[in-house]
């Protein structure tokens, strides 16, 4: 049955044809319309952005009440924290006389700064929560079992990195709460056996307050300018970099192992 096309439809078809034939379009959408199972899998395989997903997902893996999407939400919050964190870096200077005032300026003087800072703060709290719920889900569904043991270990390291990111971010407002929390937290490092100046066997290597592991952590004998810069660099550069690399591995491993089945 021949369909009669209006001139508008004909023009539209012509435009679509030109676009579909365009090399730029073709180099982005390489497989064409994913009308078959093979093409749908090819979409996942040939796209840089989609390739972190498995080409096929079992129906059980899509059930919201199986995974609660906690890993995905954690990753979403990490992206949110990265974006808001980079924006915060435009106004924040990690220097003893500036840090607290910059934080206050971000809240009261920078356009939308209070939203930005609160997004960063609440996303950080949220990420700790969701990463723990994610771990509980993985535990309760037995998803840590073979062949996924290695990914469980990577996940535990990522949990620790999340906590370390929280801890280093705690000092940056340079307020009383963060200052003393980090004083207490880093003093715990001084109780490390052998390497901490208050730990057992500290005299074996002649470890004192000015050459122990805590000293390397905070760059001094007390929380000061060095500690602030170190917390800043760990928080903004080193730890996110390590976490990103491990996350790449974590997701790649999920893709290789597939979603775990229901109990």
């Amino acid at each position, binding site marked *: 049955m021949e369909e009669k096309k209006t001139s508008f439809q004909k023009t539209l078809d012509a435009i679509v044809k030109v676009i579909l034939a365009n090399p730029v379009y073709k180099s982005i959408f390489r497989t064409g319309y994913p009308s078959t199972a093979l093409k749908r899998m090819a979409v996942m395989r040939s796209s840089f952005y989609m390739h972190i997903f498995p080409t096929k997902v079992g129906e059980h893996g899509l059930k919201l009440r199986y995974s609660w999407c906690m890993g995905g939400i954690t990753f979403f919050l990490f992206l949110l924290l990265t974006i808001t964190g980079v924006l915060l870096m435009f106004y924040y200077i990690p220097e003893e006389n500036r840090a607290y005032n910059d934080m206050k300026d971000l809240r009261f003087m920078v356009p939308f700064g209070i939203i930005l800072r609160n997004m960063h703060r609440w996303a950080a709290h949220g990420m700790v929560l969701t990463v723990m719920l994610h771990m509980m889900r993985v535990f309760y569904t037995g998803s840590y079992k073979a062949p996924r043991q290695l990914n469980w270990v990577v996940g535990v390291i990522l949990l620790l990195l999340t906590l370390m990111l929280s801890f280093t971010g705690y000092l940056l407002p340079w307020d009383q709460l963060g200052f003393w929390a980090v004083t*207490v937290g880093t003093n715990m490092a001084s109780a490390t056996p052998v390497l901490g100046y208050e730990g057992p066997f500290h005299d074996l290597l002649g470890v004192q307050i000015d050459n122990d592991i805590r000293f390397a952590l905070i760059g001094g*004998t007390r929380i*000061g300018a060095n500690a602030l810069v170190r917390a800043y660099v760990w928080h903004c550069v080193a730890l996110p970099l390590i976490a990103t690399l491990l996350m790449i591995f974590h997701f790649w491993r999920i893709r290789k192992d597939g979603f775990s089945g229901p109990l």
Partner: protein
Amino acid sequence: MDKENLSRRRFFNLVGWGSIAALLGGVGAATAKFFYPGVLYEPRATFNAGKPSDYVAPQAGETVVVDERWKKNQRVWLLRNREGIYGLTGVCTHLGCTPNWFPSEHLFKCPCHGSVYNPEGEPIAGPAPEPLYRPKIALDPAGNMIVSTGLLGIRRSNLQTTKKYKDVYWHEDEKAVIFKAPFFLAYKA
């Protein structure tokens, strides 16, 4: 060694991987060393605390007067009792917060986890494992007290005495150290 144990290939293999391991080890050690700064821009551990007569002597009914003028900048209290002057470092021996002096209760209390110290620095409640450290006090030729908190001062675990964790009051042999120069400045008005 004979040829079977150390072939040419195995020798170069060992040398090659050995040099890579040595390089990585050296880089690791250098990176670790990098995190130990060679110079600190912290307040000096030694300061001039003025003349002993600047510090109020205990009145009738008092045993000791706690002077808080150096707390903010030096984290040190200077205490004057009937025999002389001694110092206490304002660093809680639990996890390093600064305790507060409560004159009405005659106690130091740490705001972080509730350790309580008496004016001799002995922990009488809370998680603190040992007494507050004591800085050295020396007199310069002009009669000023030079107070030194180097390595935070003398502490129980450096006194080489038997540690008792349940009863943390100073022992007699420890008192013989801490109530003598350089940790105590005999001074009577």
